[in-house]
């Protein structure tokens, strides 16, 4: 895997780029306690988007981890999780909004705090989505990389503190040309009452060709059928 691009995303930063199929995105939690909110859209047909239910029920999982896949709402795969070091990433708890951030952290205006002002994850998503012609209608449940939230038998959710350590990373391999929208605002359940969003490093590289014995495909037959659907799409489209 050769690295073709590197950058650092500050805490409460936002980012959106199209990443071509066959490339990888590695995200590294630089200080520990990072949260990366992620939404995914087909770069060309943006009505096709990341689908939390199909990702979970198609693979019988509640926690995202390697070697599972990120499913679209069209029976296809956006990406495979080829490597990650913390074993659990959340995709059901959503994104903070302006009201939640104000209630938890208080007023954090630019007037007083300059570029340390308090951003919220929903607004960051909407700012980046607007640049690609997308908006509120395109908000769906996102992924929260590096954050662990567990459910008890009754469905009550709790955030696991100290889950992601400095140096923990996630590497995705893209199977479709994908619009990737990120922000690094704190997880909505992060119990810290101080607004301290954490930075992450981003590295984009070239992946090896997917083989028939790829762990992401072998882990569930659902993934093999989704990969088949993805291959047909790519063959006809390009």
């Amino acid at each position: 895997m050769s690295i073709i691009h590197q950058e650092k995303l500050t805490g409460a930063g936002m980012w959106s780029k199209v990443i071509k199929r066959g490339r990888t995105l590695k995200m590294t939690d630089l200080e520990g306690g990072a949260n990366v909110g992620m939404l995914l859209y087909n770069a060309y047909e943006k009505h096709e988007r990341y689908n939390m239910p199909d990702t979970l029920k198609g693979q019988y999982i509640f926690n995202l981890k390697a070697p599972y896949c990120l499913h679209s709402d069209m029976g296809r795969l956006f990406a495979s999780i080829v490597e990650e070091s913390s074993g659990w990433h959340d995709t059901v708890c959503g994104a903070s909004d302006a009201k939640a951030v104000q209630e938890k952290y208080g007023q954090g205006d630019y007037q007083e705090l300059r570029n340390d002002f308090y951003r919220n994850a929903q607004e960051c998503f909407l700012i980046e989505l607007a640049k690609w012609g997308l908006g509120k209608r395109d908000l769906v449940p996102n992924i929260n990389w590096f954050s662990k939230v567990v459910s008890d038998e009754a469905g009550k959710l709790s955030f696991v503190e100290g889950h992601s350590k400095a140096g923990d990373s996630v590497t995705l391999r893209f199977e479709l040309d994908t619009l990737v929208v990120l922000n690094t605002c704190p997880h909505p359940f992060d119990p810290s009452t101080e607004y301290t969003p954490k930075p992450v490093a981003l590295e984009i590289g070239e992946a090896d060709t997917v083989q028939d014995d790829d762990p992401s495909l072998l882990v569930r037959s659902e993934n093999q059928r989704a990969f088949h659907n993805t291959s047909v799409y790519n063959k006809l489209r390009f």
Partner: protein
Amino acid sequence: MLKESSLDPANAVYRQVVKAGDHWSHVIKKGQTFRILDLEGNQAADTLFYNAHDPVDRYSASDTIRCQQALYLTTGSMLMSTGGHALLEITADTCGRHDTIGGACSRESNTMRYAIDKEPMHACRDSFICGLHSHSDDLGKRDITCNINFFMNVPVTPEGGLSFEDGISAPGRYVEMVALMDVIALISNCPQLNNPCNAYNPTPVEAIIWD
């Protein structure tokens, strides 16, 4: 939380049976009570809600989960919108829990979940699209986000497992909610023939509204 309603269907202002595989939509006015009745048991009523005056503001599974810090819906659950508004509150429930992370079936997801040759089978997304078109040509697939599966049982374990279990609903069980604003309710009464949780037998539900 199990809680029975004191409302009598004989006093309802609206009643409609929704057959398996059909879609149904109706505006529920602020203050009205809306009941979905599982007539034969273990049927999944896939449901979406929209702010009737601004359909861009619509039911959000993740905002609902975030605001209640819990996965399952039952009496007391507030159904939240993407815009941060409480659309409805569940006020009675004789089933006990309802799912909002399992999503709806589509012809495409059926190929992924079951088999490529299931593509021609009727699926909830088709019903949702037809239902949205009955309100506006401007609404379509883009507006179909994560829904509620009333009467569906999708248990999550503390270890991160997720499964589809037999329903905990039964003939005559219902869920009831009061509208906190004018909302469009859109049901796809799921035609899914591949899922053991309804014993491979989709059945009708009834929509009932009181003033």
